[in-house]
């Protein structure tokens, strides 16, 4: 089994798993916050925020990658200050792949979470408030747990999407084996070589297996959590 993929291919698989996991977990708080704001708050420019969130879904990934390069690169108009002030660098690091994957998966995550927040009965939140919970506590103890099935579904969908992300990642952090070469980059590389199809196919099978497992897990977990919470 270990022979089936070369060490470099294994490396790509491992990196992809790491990138997708970190991207999902790291963007989850922001995803929940944005979903909550879109579901529950009225504020000027709400439609604009909604549009921005969806942008990566709509733009060709390469464009997103270029925009990331221009803004978050080491010389980018955000990346420069991140580096100067906090020493945070994304370019050519696996963290950059995380950033790209997170941004590409963000709209899917937010959509799923938003829908499940909209399904939470606001009267339960009122009940929490009258029992002495401040808005933040109400969110943590009522809204969040009730949204859990949606959060899980959103997170795993985002994970699957992050596993498959290619265009933005390669454009932003390029393809450095062991550092930024994710599974899709490896697939792409094989497809560019005459006769590389079989290698590409093996990697695609791995990608499908991982993503499918994640998806089925999400359906299963979401159903379990919903059954536990629901009916009440």
């Amino acid at each position: 089994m270990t022979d089936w993929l070369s060490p470099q291919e294994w490396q790509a698989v491992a990196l992809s798993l790491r990138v997708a996991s970190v991207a999902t977990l790291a963007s989850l708080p922001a995803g929940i916050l944005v979903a909550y704001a879109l579901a529950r708050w009225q504020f000027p420019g709400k439609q604009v925020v909604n549009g921005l969130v969806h942008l990566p879904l709509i733009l060709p990934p390469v464009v997103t990658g270029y925009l990331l390069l221009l803004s978050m690169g080491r010389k980018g108009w955000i990346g420069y200050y991140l580096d100067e002030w906090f020493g945070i660098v994304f370019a050519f690091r696996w963290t950059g792949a995380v950033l790209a994957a997170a941004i590409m998966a963000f709209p899917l995550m937010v959509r799923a979470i938003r829908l499940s927040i909209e399904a939470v009965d606001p009267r339960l939140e009122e009940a929490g408030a009258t029992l002495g919970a401040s808005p933040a506590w109400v969110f943590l103890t009522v809204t969040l747990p009730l949204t859990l099935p949606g959060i899980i579904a959103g997170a795993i969908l985002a994970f699957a999407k992050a596993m498959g992300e290619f265009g933005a990642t390669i454009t932003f952090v390029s393809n450095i084996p062991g550092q930024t070469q994710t599974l899709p980059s490896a697939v792409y590389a094989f497809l560019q070589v005459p006769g590389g199809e079989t290698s590409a196919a093996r990697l695609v099978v791995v990608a499908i297996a991982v993503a499918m497992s994640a998806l089925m897990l999400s359906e299963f977990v979401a159903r379990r959590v919903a059954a536990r919470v629901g009916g009440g």
Partner: protein
Amino acid sequence: MLSVALRHRFPGFQLDATFTVPHGVTVLFGRSGSGKSTIVKAVAGLLKPDEGRITLDTDVLLDTGRGIALAPHRRRLGTVFQEGRLFPHLTVRQNLAYGRWFAPRGSRAEREDHVVEMLGIGHLLDRRPGLLSGGEKQRVAIGRALLCAPRLILADEPLAALDEARKAEILPYFERLRDEVSVPILYVSHSASEVARLATTVVALENGGVVRQGPPEAVLGDPSVTPLGSREAGALIAATVVRHHDDGLTELSAGGTPLFLPHLAQLPGQPVRVRIAAHDVILSRQRPEGLSALNILAGTVAEIREGGGPGAMVAIDTPAGRVLARITQRSVGALGLAPGAAVHAVIKTVSVSPADIGR
């Protein structure tokens, strides 16, 4: 002391209600749409009225004039809603504990085991709300409200969604709450039975305004106050349990007059209050003999109020207290009833429903 003064306008509805009530159970009483829930929401802080001032003892919860409006979670109230609103993701135990997490340290909350025992929910603690019956849910909701160390409990028609059997199951818990726990309660109802059994003070609302306020005997015994229509009218009689008879009847004494009711749970010597629905009272000039009805109260007519229909509301002062009777105007004429006339009120033993007997 709870003092409420509110003014709020909804499209097509204007609330303008002011009342000040002592501790105990205050029942807000009135038809659907009279503004009861609006008042409760304002007290809870879930609705910001156009103008208003709400104080609880010395604390100001709201004073629009001075720009004070405590957030709901700072008011330290416990609420019991019609639909329970238990947290479906928490067990009963966690639901009960919820309020306590947020109660200020050192606040005087009820002890959990005491509340659990009082409400009879010990066997439910590890279940989730989804698996409870409607009545069980409401009991847990009451416990949850109690355990957050509230300064006031708000209960907005906590029994409305339950059927009669379930209601009968919960009402005693509110009575125990009133009697065993010192927290004041603001209780919304449009059931005369609930008012009769629970209230220490009644605030009757009509169209967003307070029409009458006072102790329940006075408000319910006033033939002119029928915020729920004359079919729901009925006076309240305070009595004491005298004895339980072998044939299943309980003998009460109301101002010295004996009253027989189907078996009550209270021990001899304990006080009870009995609502006598006005349409269940028959009047007679002479003392009637040989009737199956066991309760006959002699008294004098205090007041007669004729309504728009064929009926009339007659208030009779008896040694047991004031009794209301709804009879036809034809009978008023036939019996020659007028204020001051001597009369006997006949009350069937079984026509007093268990829901109308409180303590």
